């Protein structure tokens, strides 16, 4: 599956990932700091993912 990251914008490929929570673990990202978007919709950490998915890990931290 493809994972899109930002700041800087880049893309990584992950294999053998079952759920969104696994993506956080693989990439050592803190769930509280991101939204996960698939096909324009928010998905929760228990959602199953497939190798065909493209997930955007959108950071939510911004300066005031």
């Amino acid at each position, binding site marked *: 599956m493809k994972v899109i990251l930002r700041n800087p914008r880049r893309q990584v490929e992950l294999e053998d990932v079952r759920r969104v929570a696994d993506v956080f673990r693989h990439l050592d990202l803190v769930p509280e700091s991101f939204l996960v978007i698939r096909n324009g919709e928010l998905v*929760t950490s228990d959602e199953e993912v497939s190798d065909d998915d493209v997930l955007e890990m959108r950071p939510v931290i*911004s300066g005031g």
Partner: protein
Amino acid sequence: MKCRVCRGKAVIQVRRHNANFCQEHFIDHIHRQVERTIDDFKMFGPDHRLVLGVSGGKDSLALWHILTYVGYRVDGLYLQLGIGDYSSESLTLSQQFAAERGLKLEVVDLPSDFGFAVPEAAAASRRTPCSACGLSKRYVLNREAESRGYDVLVMGHNLDDEAATLFSNVLGWNVEYLGRQRPVLPATDGGLCRKVKPLIRVAERETAAYAVLNGIDYEVEECPLAAGNTINRYKEWLNRLEEQSPGIKANFLFGFLERGSVHFSDAEDVELVSCSNCGQPTTGELCAFCRLQAVTFSRKQDL
């Protein structure tokens, strides 16, 4: 995951409330959190003239959407900071948001109205870009809100902004800042507009989710000058704590507001006088903004 309210498919988990929500009930939840904050802290009423500081980011645009939806009439005030494409894109997004909803957006341009851009001010002074930016925003938004006759300046600071600022002020024991860290700062005769923060019960992740779920097109990229920003680093640390202990950010902030801030209230009892250059309230002869402007002009003349 299922929605706590309707048992439909959840789109977001809010662990500090031990709840998951579908789109409809998450949006309801956010509206209730903001309305409760406005009521609890007596921020403003339906007859007040409100102006919102708009940046084009998720917080200010989500707050504008929320306040309008629940029935308030709010104008927007955008400060163009002169940060290249980032500022241009943020302005375009703010203008599009306002135009699509028939809202009034006033634009102030730091370079053309005040003679300098944030990157120039940061280079000329000993301030970081975020410090020069924050000072400019506080000064210009207050001055413009006052001079345009608004009763209340509404700001989009969220739970994470306030918790990280509190964390920073505690680490440095900045007692004067701790005394001023409140969701409502009253107006003064000397030129400070009443300032309020209705998003303090809403986490940063939730304002972003609210924006996505409502189709709000906001500036997703981080400011290019904010790399390594200390407050953002504190937010990251607090989020790691939040993962282990859901609710710790809210407990930290609201515990301070309910039981801690009273111990620092004397620290903000400083006498304000008028700046000898611009007339805005300050504690010294020349306000910090005029000093920043002067050092930036001086540096530009030397180049």
